[in-house]
């Protein structure tokens, strides 16, 4: 290969690599919006595969659980084992359908009671790696989903939409460190900002040390952040630590929604035009 061609090739490689690096790094500073074409291509291509794989893994998991529960039957006899295995797998299927039915019914009741336009979505990818808590759901701007829309479950707030592609959306969970929701302690209206702490817990930040917050207090949305409607359940105070020298107290909150086993969510397409204090009432119950 001639020397000049070698040099041109080197320059081309450096330019292409540099461009790719700049593009990827620039995404860190991009305001949340619709995913760009490249991201959409990746999500739309791999999304269905991951969705199917997740469902398959779920079925296998259920089957393994069913099989494990049958192990003691081995000791009785082969015939009984086969019969039992069949019945058990059927039972698991019915139980799964029953539980799904209950979950969807609760979600439906919750949606009806919200009286806002919502979109039901299934979780496709759950990303619980060490440094971020996001999920991908199977509804995108084709279904009217947009950035910053609140995402809830029947037990409370899940998070909000971060990015959207045609058929998928990325949701930032409450437990992510960059998540911030304007929140109130329901009992005495003490206000703070709820952000992520680790995989399973959140932290109610900026609550002064002289404010009265106790373990067991319910934390709800204040409705003042322009994203979430007022009064949606966020979590329950688990632990309160007060340092006399610190301005703010440390409040650990456990989300009311079990984010690690999330399967279906509702995306609120519009904020309700009325205060939803009644939701706090249901929380008291």
């Amino acid at each position: 290969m001639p020397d000049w061609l070698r040099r041109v090739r080197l320059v081309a490689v450096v330019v292409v690599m540099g461009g790719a690096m700049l593009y990827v790094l620039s995404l860190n500073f991009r305001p949340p919006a619709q995913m760009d074409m490249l991201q959409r291509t990746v999500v739309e291509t791999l999304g269905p595969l991951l969705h199917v794989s997740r469902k398959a893994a779920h079925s296998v998991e259920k089957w393994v659980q069913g099989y494990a529960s049958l192990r003691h039957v081995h000791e009785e006899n082969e015939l009984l084992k086969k019969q039992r295995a069949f019945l058990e797998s059927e039972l698991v299927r019915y139980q799964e359908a029953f539980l799904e039915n209950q979950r969807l019914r609760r979600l439906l009741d919750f949606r009806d009671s919200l009286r806002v336009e919502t979109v039901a979505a299934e979780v496709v990818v759950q990303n619980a790696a060490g440094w971020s808590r996001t999920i991908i759901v199977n509804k995108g701007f084709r279904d009217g989903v947009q950035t910053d829309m609140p995402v809830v479950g029947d037990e409370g707030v899940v998070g909000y939409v971060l990015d959207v592609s045609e058929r998928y959306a990325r949701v930032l969970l409450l437990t992510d460190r960059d998540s911030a929701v304007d929140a109130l302690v329901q009992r005495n209206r003490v206000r703070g900002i709820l952000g992520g702490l680790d995989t399973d817990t959140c932290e109610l930040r900026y609550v002064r040390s002289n404010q009265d917050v106790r373990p067991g207090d319910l934390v709800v949305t204040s409705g003042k952040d322009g994203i979430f409607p007022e009064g949606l359940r966020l979590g329950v105070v688990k632990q309160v630590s007060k340092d006399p020298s610190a301005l703010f107290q440390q409040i650990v909150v456990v989300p009311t929604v079990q984010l690690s086993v999330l399967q279906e969510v509702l995306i609120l397409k519009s904020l309700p035009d009325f205060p939803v204090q009644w939701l706090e009432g249901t929380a008291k119950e």
Partner: protein
Amino acid sequence: MRSVAVWGVSESERGPWGKVLVVFFGYSLLIYVIGTVIVLRLPWGFTRVDLMMAVCVEIAGRFPIWVSLLWCFLWGYVSDVFQGRLWGLHGAAYLMVVYLHRLWSSQMDVWSLWYRALLVGLGIALQGVAAAVIVNGGPEMTRVFITTAGQALFSIMVSPFVMAPIPWILGEKDR
């Protein structure tokens, strides 16, 4: 197609390019799906490791540098898209592992399983520390570092199982 000997492995030893593509796309996709669907959902923090790091080490050891770089960019980007945060972290960690492998390849027995497993652990540790420094900060750092150390150890144990099928796919003889 040009015959390129990579760190002592001739193209005939690596097998035809069809097999290379199977590893580059098919096997990488399989490991990515397993990682996303199963490993990232495991209940213990130290087990939620990036399986693609082990594939990256194998790619770095067996394929030409440009293939390794392409792999790092492609799969780093795919991981970033589904992560949605810290854009470039996966790719940067993969590139770092490829760089370290090239740096050390003349001084170490690159075909030693120990070397490759340790390189995977090092990559996971670097990735975890970088993420911890950027994202976490503050009083939780100690806990995050402990988790990262656990992830590095776990990935050292798991990586041989991820790496083992690659020479088999490429039809390589036992070393």
